[in-house]
């Protein structure tokens, strides 16, 4: 009897896993594609009935997209926007990561300067743009500064908290083997903090996108933000949506790029945590 039960038990488990329903077998990208197609279709269908001043629909946006490509307006705007975006964001990462590492590691720095980072993260920095215009003018510089300010704080604060989350015993391994402060920072804290840094970089992209668009609204009207505001002011709704969607697509792509970067610089991390949702 006992033997029978023992033999049958695993077989039953196997049958259950073998009968997986379509919710677990259909690839994720297929589900995503279907979802996007349905949403776009609904928008197209209902959007056509809406007053073109108040709304638009996908095929009108695509038409506007190609006509803006033909005149070169979209490409020019993209280049204009991306320059201060890239500079501001990269400087935010170059400054934010080391500052976060130091804040997390040294108590004196944390108690002296941590409060400013926390406050800066919570401040509605967009409200400072008029002042920044007085300081940096209306051109490239002020846009880069706005992007920097908005993305610096999430990058820095995530790195900082990431250092705080490194297990004490992991640092003690360094201490026990007489690692120098620099060796502990570079060889233990930095690699252990990478997932948090990457999360900060991802959040930073979202903030930087908001920063560049708002900066272009409020300073010299230019770039993709400039197209949004001039099209909106002249009630060309479809045209207005072109840069909005372009920015969205680019931001999603950049976020994915950071995720890819994480797999590249911290492959052990995805091996440990890599799992699919049910």
């Amino acid at each position, binding site marked *: 009897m006992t033997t029978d039960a023992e033999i049958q038990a695993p077989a039953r488990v196997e049958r259950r896993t073998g009968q997986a329903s379509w919710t677990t077998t259909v690839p994720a990208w297929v589900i995503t594609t279907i979802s996007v197609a349905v949403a776009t279709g609904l928008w197209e269908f209902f959007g056509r009935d809406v007053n073109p001043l108040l709304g638009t629909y996908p095929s009108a946006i695509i038409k506007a997209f190609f006509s803006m490509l033909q005149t070169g307006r979209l490409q020019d705007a993209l280049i204009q926007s991306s320059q201060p975006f890239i500079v501001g964001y990269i400087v935010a990462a170059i400054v934010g990561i080391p500052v976060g590492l130091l804040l997390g590691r040294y108590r004196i720095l944390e108690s002296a300067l941590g409060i400013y980072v926390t406050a800066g993260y919570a401040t509605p920095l967009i409200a400072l743009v008029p002042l920044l215009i007085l300081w940096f003018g209306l051109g490239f510089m002020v846009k880069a500064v706005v992007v920097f300010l908005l993305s610096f704080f999430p990058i820095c604060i995530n790195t900082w908290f990431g250092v705080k989350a490194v297990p004490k*015993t*992991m640092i*003690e*391994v*360094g201490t*026990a*083997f007489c*690692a120098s402060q620099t060796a502990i920072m570079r060889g233990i804290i930095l690699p252990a903090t990478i997932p948090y840094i990457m999360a900060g970089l991802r959040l930073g992209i979202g903030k930087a996108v908001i920063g560049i668009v708002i900066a272009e609204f409020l300073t010299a009207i230019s770039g993709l933000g400039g197209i949004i505001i001039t099209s909106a002011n002249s009630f060309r709704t479809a045209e207005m949506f072109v840069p909005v969607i372009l920015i969205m697509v680019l931001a999603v792509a950049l976020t994915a790029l950071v995720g890819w970067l994480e797999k590249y610089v*911290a492959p052990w991390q995805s091996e440990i945590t890599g799992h699919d949702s049910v």
Partner: protein
Amino acid sequence: MAHLEVQNITKSFGTHHALDGVSFNVEKGDVVALIGPSGCGKTTALRIIMGLETATSGQVKVAGRPVSGCGHDRGMVFQHAELLPWRNTLSNIGYGLEMKGMKEPELSRTAMHYLELVGLTLAKDRRPHQLSGGMKQRVGIARALAIDPEVLLMDEPFGALDSQTREGLHGELLSIHAKTQKTIIFVTHDLDEAVMLADRVAVMHGGKISQIIPIELERPRLDMRAIRTSAEYSKKRTLIWEALHDAGVSAAA
């Protein structure tokens, strides 16, 4: 002069005395177990010897030299191995050597030697999450041995393992000790582990050593089955049990 001298160390956290005057000497090549209930100060004592914590008073000498802070004269094995997840087995074993300033190709050669010593040659390129608990701890032991310390310090090294794996590692540690003749101090709460591995068992309670019990089993201890059934084994096991029990009763009273 003893190889390791622990001289009247105390440790206070505010008004709480975690260690209340602990002294013992360990001869070169000896294995000493610190055993006692949770909170008796055994881990604190070990951490002070390692230099991870500073004693409120008293001192520790290794080979006649007083120690302060870390040092490559002591190698630490952590309770949960604490391997660095981004390093593979070989590179984890080489960590202490790197910190010691050893360069390639000597670094890899030495790490390879200790990798072989703990029998993990096949797992050379794996990362810690691909290793079992027992394998992780063998890497932890190899990492500590690789810096060729005077004293090997182990903080409940097998406490987190299942009993079969634990016994396998007991055998492994006995044979490593037979080969390297290292001085070893380990913390445990497992009676069998203490008797099987140690030459002397220090029973701790309330921040003090209440008894030091010598284990007169011959080395090398290769036949664990014979040892387990020997009269000395059961006699000493009972003695330690009583020492722990008496201390517990006097504490409760």
